[in-house]
């Protein structure tokens, strides 16, 4: 089911370095329907003690990117779903800052659940600002299974 070289577990890779703009934050906030002035109005953010607009909490997932990385090869025909995430928000993400995202596969294993065989992949990502300070820790769980089991 999961076709992963065990040596890849725990191996950290850099996903990328991203500059965050106020427009990125506004687009994301509007997309989730969260119009908190701290995300949209630099004056409101400064009045609250921030240097610029801050990002909604789950904006960190935008920095992590689309398909969860590092990629894990799967047997053909399998389907996968995001099963959950644990996010620790150490510091706010600001407009005008640059962030680097790194990630690793923390665990990958198979088991038999009530609906048949499952693969479980756990990834951990770290987002750091340009000074190297950790701002977000992310742990995500992916489930792999046969697509014949409809949800």
């Amino acid at each position, binding site marked *: 089911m999961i076709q992963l070289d065990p040596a890849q577990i725990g191996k950290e890779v850099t996903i990328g370095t991203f500059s965050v703009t106020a427009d990125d934050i506004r687009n994301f906030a509007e997309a989730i329907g969260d119009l908190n002035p701290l995300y949209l109005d630099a004056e409101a953010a400064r009045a609250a003690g921030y240097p610029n607009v801050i990002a909604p*909490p789950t904006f960190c997932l935008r920095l992590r990117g689309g398909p969860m990385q590092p990629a894990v090869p799967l047997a053909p025909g399998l389907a996968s779903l995001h099963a959950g995430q644990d996010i620790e928000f150490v510091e706010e993400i600001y407009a005008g800052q640059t962030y680097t995202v790194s990630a690793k596969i923390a665990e990958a294993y198979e088991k038999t659940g009530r609906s048949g065989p499952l693969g479980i992949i756990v990834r951990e990502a770290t987002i750091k600002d340009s000074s190297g300070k950790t701002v977000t820790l992310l742990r995500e769980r992916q489930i792999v299974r046969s697509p014949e089991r409809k949800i």
Partner: protein
Amino acid sequence: MAERATRLFDEIEIGDEIGPVTRVPTTEMVLRYAEAAGIHELRFFFDPEQARLNGLERPIVPGPLTAGFLAQLLTDHFAGWRLRALHTTFRAPALHGEPLQLWGTVTEKTDHDGAPTVHCDIVAENQRGDRVIVGTATLSWRG
């Protein structure tokens, strides 16, 4: 939307309810989220055929979008506080256009070393009574 209100530590009690708030993630919202979150290549969120190939009856709402609704529930309810941790388990798929009721409960409050902290359970439930997301959250006083 929840009322955005500053709550002082002493005003918060274990057992306090957060919400409920109802959100309806439309297909338009999913498409906009996919673009803003950079997940537009995950087509099973909006393409029926890709959803079927991935074992889904129909396109679903991205779990992190629903988690974002829950984060907003908390940051609106606890204005003046900062979300420190958000732990979520995606238990069932949320469907486009189906209303989701979001709520939470304060489960613990601590004030160690002058760092007021509140812990909550959080839930997103669809109109059939399925808990789409369950989780926990931690907030600290921003002051």
